[in-house]
Each structure stands twice: as structure tokens, then as C-alpha cells.
């Protein structure tokens, strides 16, 4: 990124990048929907209405109603809160753990690095979802189990990314200078090296959010994550499966919500990679 573009105001920089603008607009839109859900949702998301079962989309129910007579539009809106939370928290914990481990492994090298890298190899040998499901099998179904499993499995990608960056950075002049000034290892690691190593992982955060969102929704679809009657998009699709031939709308809309939110993360991630000159 050139100095010129850095000196432009933020709005001008975003405005010149339609992909970034669109991605941020989608993400911002979902955040707004999540915050405003109680105000704009026309119905209670878990209130059943025996007189309004399986109604197709109409003015009263824009996305129709499900087999319990619940308003699908209101449920999709409320689901934004859970699924956005999944995408954010499901990324934050692995990011923090992975960044810490990667920094330490890259900085110290030697046997610390060797051991940590072998652990990463082993975690990566398991299919991601399979290891997560195995952990959830022990902890029992639920959103908390999902976050724990996500943290235990997801950190490896961040650790590898950060480690590779730290390895390159630690022999550069500024790091050597900091060491010769007698700064502590902790200070060099986290004040000097880490800030310079983060660009790649910050871009990866966006594409990871897509995977985490899909994982969270998939695990909830399988019945092992968020539990009914909570309105979560994966749960909604699971509950709708039996009615696919009579009521397509119960399945269609929560799925579209996932696709749109994921698209927002992907666009933002691609645009950020472009902006920061990072190539995955």
C-alpha cells in the first residue's frame, strides 16, 4: 500500500473499492439487524400459533410460517444474533490462542517450536469437523461445547500463519536492534514482532469467519450445536427438512441468510487481502 493511499480519508479509500464497500455494507447490515431484531421482528420468534401453520409467504408473514405456526421472517431476524455471534466468537478464541502459540513457537524455535509443530501436524491430520464432533461428543451438545471445540481445533491455522511471519521478521534489522537495546524477549515478541506479523492473519480472519459460520450452522443442523427452539439458521433448516415437499420457504430463507452473511465476510476478506497486499 502506498503512502498516498494511506493519507486519504477512510471514506475515500473504501469508496474506491466497490468490493470492500459491498462487503462492509453486508456485514454492517447484519449487525444492524442483530441489534434491531427485537424492534423490527413482527412476531415472537418462538411463539407457536396452531392457527397459522405452514402458511406460504404473504404480507403478514414475508417468509411464511413453519410447522409450529412460527413466523419465519422473525426467526431469521433473531437468528442473526446467534449466527453472527458464532462467526465472531468462533474466530476470536482460535485467533487469540493461535497467535500466542505461533509467536512463541516462531520466536524461541528449537524444541519448543518442534513440539508445537508436531502437535499442529497431529491436529491437522484429523478432518476438522470430525475432530470437532469428537470433542462435542464428550462435552455434550450445545453452543458452549461448539466454542470450546472450535478453540481447540481452530487455533492451528493461526499458529502456522503467525509462526511463519515471526520466523521471517525476527532476523530483520529492527528486531535485532530491539534485542541489542536490551529489550526483554516479551517486549520484542509482542510489541515489535507481533504487530508486523498480524496482517496475514487479519485477512485470514475473514475467510475463517465463513468456515466457522458454516461449521456452527452445520453442527447445529446435525443437532449437536444450538438447540431448538432457539432461532438459529442451521437449526431452522434441520427443523424444516421434513416439510421440504410442502413448505419450501422454511428451508430457503435461513439458508439464504447464511449465504449472504458468508458472502459479506468473503468479499471483505478478498478486498482486505487486496488492500494490504497479502496473498493467501
Amino acid at each position, binding site marked *: 500500500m502506498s503512502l498516498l493511499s494511506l493519507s486519504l480519508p477512510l471514506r475515500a479509500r473504501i469508496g474506491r473499492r466497490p468490493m470492500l464497500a459491498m462487503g462492509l455494507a453486508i456485514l454492517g447490515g447484519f449487525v444492524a439487524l442483530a441489534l434491531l431484531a427485537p424492534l423490527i421482528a413482527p412476531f415472537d420468534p418462538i411463539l407457536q400459533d396452531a392457527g397459522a401453520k405452514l402458511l406460504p409467504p404473504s404480507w403478514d408473514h414475508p417468509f411464511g410460517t413453519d410447522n409450529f405456526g412460527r413466523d419465519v421472517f422473525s426467526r431469521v431476524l433473531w437468528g442473526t444474533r446467534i449466527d453472527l455471534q458464532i462467526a465472531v466468537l468462533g474466530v476470536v478464541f482460535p485467533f487469540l490462542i493461535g497467535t500466542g502459540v505461533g509467536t512463541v513457537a516462531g520466536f524461541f524455535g528449537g524444541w519448543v517450536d518442534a513440539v508445537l509443530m508436531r502437535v499442529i501436524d497431529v491436529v491437522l*491430520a484429523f478432518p476438522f*469437523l470430525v475432530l470437532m*464432533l469428537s470433542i462435542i*461428543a464428550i462435552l455434550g451438545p450445545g453452543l458452549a461445547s461448539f466454542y470450546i471445540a472450535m478453540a481447540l481445533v481452530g487455533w492451528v491455522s493461526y499458529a502456522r500463519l503467525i509462526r511463519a511471519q515471526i520466523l521471517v521478521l525476527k532476523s530483520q534489522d529492527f528486531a535485532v536492534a530491539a534485542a541489542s537495546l536490551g529489550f526483554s524477549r516479551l517486549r520484542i515478541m509482542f510489541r515489535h514482532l507481533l504487530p508486523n506479523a498480524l496482517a496475514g492473519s487479519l485477512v485470514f480472519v475473514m475467510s475463517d469467519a465463513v468456515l466457522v459460520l458454516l461449521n456452527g450452522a*452445520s453442527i447445529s443442523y446435525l443437532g449437536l450445536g444450538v438447540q431448538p427452539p432457539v432461532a438459529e439458521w442451521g437449526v431452522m433448516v434441520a427443523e*424444516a427438512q421434513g416439510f421440504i415437499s410442502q413448505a419450501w420457504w422454511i428451508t430457503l430463507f435461513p439458508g439464504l441468510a447464511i449465504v449472504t452473511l458468508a458472502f459479506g465476510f468473503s468479499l471483505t476478506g478478498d478486498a482486505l487481502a487486496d488492500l494490504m497486499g497479502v496473498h493467501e
Partner: protein
Amino acid sequence: MHRYRFILLRPLQLVPVLFGISIITFVLVRLIPGDPARVLLGTRATPSAIANIRAQYGLDDPIWVQYLYFLKNLGAGEMGKSVVYKIDVLRLIATRIEPTLALVVAGVVLTLVIAVPFAALSARRQGRAADHAVRIVSTAGLGFPAFWLGMMLILLFSVRLDWLPVAGYGESFSERLQHMILPGLTIALSLSAIITRSLRAGMIAGLSSDVATAARARGMPENVVFWRHVVPNAVVPTVNLLAVNIGWLIGGTVVVESVFAVPGLGQLMVRAIFSRDYMVVQGVALAFALATVLTNFLADILTVALDPRVEM
């Protein structure tokens, strides 16, 4: 032949990973609260069965001795019994491999059928409308949840058009082939999003490579240059990308098998989690991890075989 020396060396390097896999699967089940014998046998186990399993797995010994027992049993192909199905886990897994393997193969084949033409279209019209369309669709495709995509395909091809069966696996070969189309397509559409991007990048690099320029200089038509010189070189890194994504692909089969009621390993695992059949969960996790390691190894061999320049 020393380019292939790694085929003998690599298994040795894999030993620590295999140990790690066995430790994780061992620890996972031991972390479940409660008496391990009860955990493994279920709540209705008889006292003699509990005594047997205590002896077989050394459950009264220290934890590291228990791990050695676990390894010994594993070495003898002994992975315990399923509480629900009342048969050996190894035999149970063996009966479920075929549908999962069929699903993976169908998924990969359909992925190539979808991804190669779209990547070619995109690469040859770089920067034009078709290219932008392919790139936007593949970016959006990354975010399609497999369970939802599968149900949309059911809605279109089974409910509306009535062309294909809704779910299940079928008896005869042709029935099974029919049953694999929609699940395979579900996996392929998701996987194509990843593969198309990489293929496109490879083809674009290939179009301006020396090989392509030399072929054009010999007067070869652009079509021939593209399909004979550019595409084969772009496919080699894609083989590796497929292998790197095998874990993701297996995760996908777990979800897709549940959507389409395919009686494979993934469905077995999900049901075992619900019925607390931990021996089965452990066995399937182990089987999937071994399959991942083996696939990556085979992909390395294939990469060396396909590209004479590669050294491992």
C-alpha cells in the same frame, strides 16, 4: 528412481503423527466423566462384561499403561464393540466405508466436471464479464452450507422435477449410482468454489508461460495450446489442493450423509454421538484421520508422478 525415495522415507516421518492421532483418540474417550468401563459399555452392562473390559484395557492400571493396552488392542485390530449394534467396531466401520468412498469419488469427479470448464472460461476471458461472473459465483459458493444446498437440490430435482431419489442408498449398482448424484453434486458444488479459483490462477499463469509461447510460435491453434499445454499443467497443483482439502471433504460427507440418509461413516459417527456409542465415535475418528494421512501421502506420489520437476 531416487525421486521416489520419499515413498519409503515418508512413512517413517509419519510415525510421530500416527502416534499423535492414537493419543488424541485415546485421550478423547478417557476424558468422558465417569467410570471408563461404564462409559464404553453403556449403563446396562453386566458385571462380567465390565470385568472383561477392565482386563482387556487395563483400566485398573495407570493411564499410560492403559494407553499401551489401547495400542496393543489397536495393533490386533481390536477396537471394541458397539453398544448399539453389538458387533465389533472394526467390522461395523468396514461395512460403512463403501457409501462414503462412493460419495467422495462422486464428489471429486463432479467437481472436476464443473470446475475445469468454468476455470477455462474464466481464464481465457480474463477481466471480461464471464470472468467476473465466475469469480463472483465461486466467491459466493464458498459460503454455501452443504446441508442447505443439498436440500435445495432435493427440492429442485426430487420434489419438483421428480428426476432423482430423495434420499437413501439403494440396492443394485444402478440404483446406488442414482442415489449418489445429488449428494455428490452437493459436495461438488461446494468444492468447485475452491478448486475453480486455483485452476483459474494456474491456467492464467500457464497462458503466458514459455511452453504456451513456444507452442504458439510453432503455429499451434490457441485451442490446442490451451487444452494440451495449459490445462495439464494447471491440474497438477489442483491434485494437491484436493488432497489438502480431503479433511474438509470428509467433513462435508459427514453433513451430506445426514442430509441424504446415506449409510456411510459420517452418518454412523453422528448417530453414535447421539447414542453415546463412544467406541464407534473413537473408531470412526481414527479411521477418518488415517484416511486423511493416507490420501495426502498418495497425493504426494501422484504429484511426483505427474510432474517430472517435483522433488519431495
